[in-house]
């Protein structure tokens, strides 16, 4: 085990080279609906139990199923209304189970990125070979069902190994060359993109995804009331929008249809979306669009700046 994952360097949030998003936008805004499939009777993993009760865990399973049966369309209507294309963190098996949902997203030109096969299969305990197979299976499924070359990763249930990002970058290259596997949502160390070291040295970035704005963290872990979540979204935006004048920032709202789309919560979410998209000078984008733009325009400058600051240390 390592003391530090080694993915990125210390890079202070001041005096960085200025980022300007397309058309001079000061903030890049993206919404990442997690569209997940949890299994009713998944195999055991020695490091993490998928469900707290002996199977069938009716409550946990069924509310997540509600997200697919009912909640998905509700959030999709909101994103349509405010002109937002979702960037889907996808349990790839959902392509097989619920192709109707995949079709609805394809019609809207939403982005699909990998969130593993099932959200009840954890990376913990996998050999490097097994993890590579799982990552490849998910990227191939996404390509087969959507025609998209998967660019981003959020490990299933945020379960990682020491090799997760290396493997994702390598499998992306193996399948799609430079067009596959070049950004990660797994790290929460910054409000701007950062270059990531992978063992193959690929041009690879971390795109801020945010646990703090994640509806499941807010509602299930911190257990906040809906209106407080809506307020936090607006306040988070206000600060990043203001700081974006100095150098472009990113705000992501990661969502789950079984949380944010509930009838008693969706109003707070809608108010935040209306507020955020009501601002000028923001770039409403997908994760891949942000990553691509950054790689093309700022990645090299960032590497040089990080390197110069390390030398001065």
């Amino acid at each position, binding site marked *: 085990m390592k003391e530090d994952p080694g993915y990125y360097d210390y890079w202070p949030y001041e005096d960085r080279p200025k980022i300007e998003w397309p058309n001079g936008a000061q903030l890049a805004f993206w919404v990442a609906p997690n569209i997940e*499939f949890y*299994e*009713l*009777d998944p*195999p*055991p*993993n*020695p490091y993490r139990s998928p469900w*707290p*009760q*002996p*199977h*069938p*865990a*009716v*409550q946990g*399973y*069924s*509310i997540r*199923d*509600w997200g*697919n*049966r*009912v909640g*998905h*369309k*509700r959030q999709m209507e909101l994103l349509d209304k405010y002109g937002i294309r979702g960037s889907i963190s996808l349990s790839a*098996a959902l392509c*097989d*189970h*619920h*192709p*109707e*949902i995949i079709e609805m997203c394809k019609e809207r030109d939403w982005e699909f990125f990998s969130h593993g*096969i*099932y959200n009840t*299969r954890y990376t913990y*305990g*996998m*050999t*490097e*070979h*097994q993890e590579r*197979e*799982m990552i490849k*299976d998910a990227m191939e499924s996404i390509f087969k069902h959507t025609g998209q070359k998967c660019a981003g990763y959020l490990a299933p249930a945020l379960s990682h190994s020491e090799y997760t990002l290396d493997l994702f970058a390598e499998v992306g290259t193996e399948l799609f060359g430079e067009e596959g596997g070049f950004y990660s949502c797994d790290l929460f160390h910054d409000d701007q993109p950062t270059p990531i070291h992978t063992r193959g040295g690929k041009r690879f970035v971390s795109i801020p995804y945010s646990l703090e704005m994640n509806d499941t963290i807010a509602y299930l872990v911190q*257990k906040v*009331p*809906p*209106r407080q979540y809506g307020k936090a979204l607006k306040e988070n935006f206000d600060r990043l929008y203001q700081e974006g004048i100095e150098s472009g920032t990113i705000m992501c709202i990661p969502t789950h249809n079984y949380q944010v789309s*509930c*009838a*008693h*919560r*969706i*109003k*707070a979410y809608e108010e935040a979306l209306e507020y955020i998209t009501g601002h000028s000078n923001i770039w409403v984008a997908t994760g891949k669009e942000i990553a691509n733009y950054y790689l093309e325009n700022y990645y090299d400058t960032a590497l040089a700046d990080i390197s110069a600051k390390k030398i001065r240390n």
Partner: protein
Amino acid sequence: MAMSELDKNYLQYPHRSYGMDHKRYDWSMLQDRPKVVWPEGKLLALWVNVGLQYFPLNQKGHPFKVPGGMTKPYPDLRHYSLRDYGNRVGIYRFLKAFDRYGIKPTFAVSTRLAERTPYLIDKIKEREDEIICHGYHMDALHYGGQDQTEEAELIRKSLDGLRQISGQAIRGWISPAKNESANTPDLLAEQGINYFCDWVNDDLPYPFHTKKGSLIAMPLSTELEDYHIILNNQHSAESWSEQVCDACDFLLQDARDNGGRILSLNIHPWVLGQPHRIGYLEKVLDYLSSKPEVWSAYAGDIVDAWKA
């Protein structure tokens, strides 16, 4: 290469195909269903479900401690008596509120409570409100791995007892903690249950497959229930009332656009029947009953109207 610590089936996915990963019900998105019309052209069916629960002091906690049950070493007098408060005091505040706002409540009763409190059950019987079975008591859990004969007997004891005491047919069921074994739906259908309320995966009833007989799943929201919001999430009673009113507004609009919907409110007299909270229940009932498009109905009547 390192040996995997996982069984070799960990990367095999036998159920990875169209629909669900089990055969209990069919995959179906709400948007693809026929539009539902409630009686008299109403848009939103209001199902007020009152849990009348018995939490025994000598809780076994097998295979887990039921949420809302005893948490302290025996004898946990604080939790036993505070739950009992609901059935002695809180419930009579509820009944007054229901009558004041013209609400038709459905009572989900632990059979053991019915055995212990004939006065309360007579009171409900006189009102002719619907009674459904909430299991034998809150510590008599149904769970994965439970012996099937033992569970069948538990269900028989719960239903026979409640049917006898209530004089009602008892068509509906909620498992304690909404927890089940793989056999629970089959056993319920075998013993004359028409609808059950454990699965929270939809906003409308839907057919559930069983080995014998038909069974309807009637989703009862956990996310909106008083226990979940006020005690689990630690929100104020005022916040609960805001959340319910927000849900009502959203579902009413959804119903206008897409056909009849259900607002299911699962409430407990030991939670909302407290003097400092009852006002917020009244506020909610006042708001809901002021909407002409809302149809307050028993769970069984909602299921029947949905079938029709």
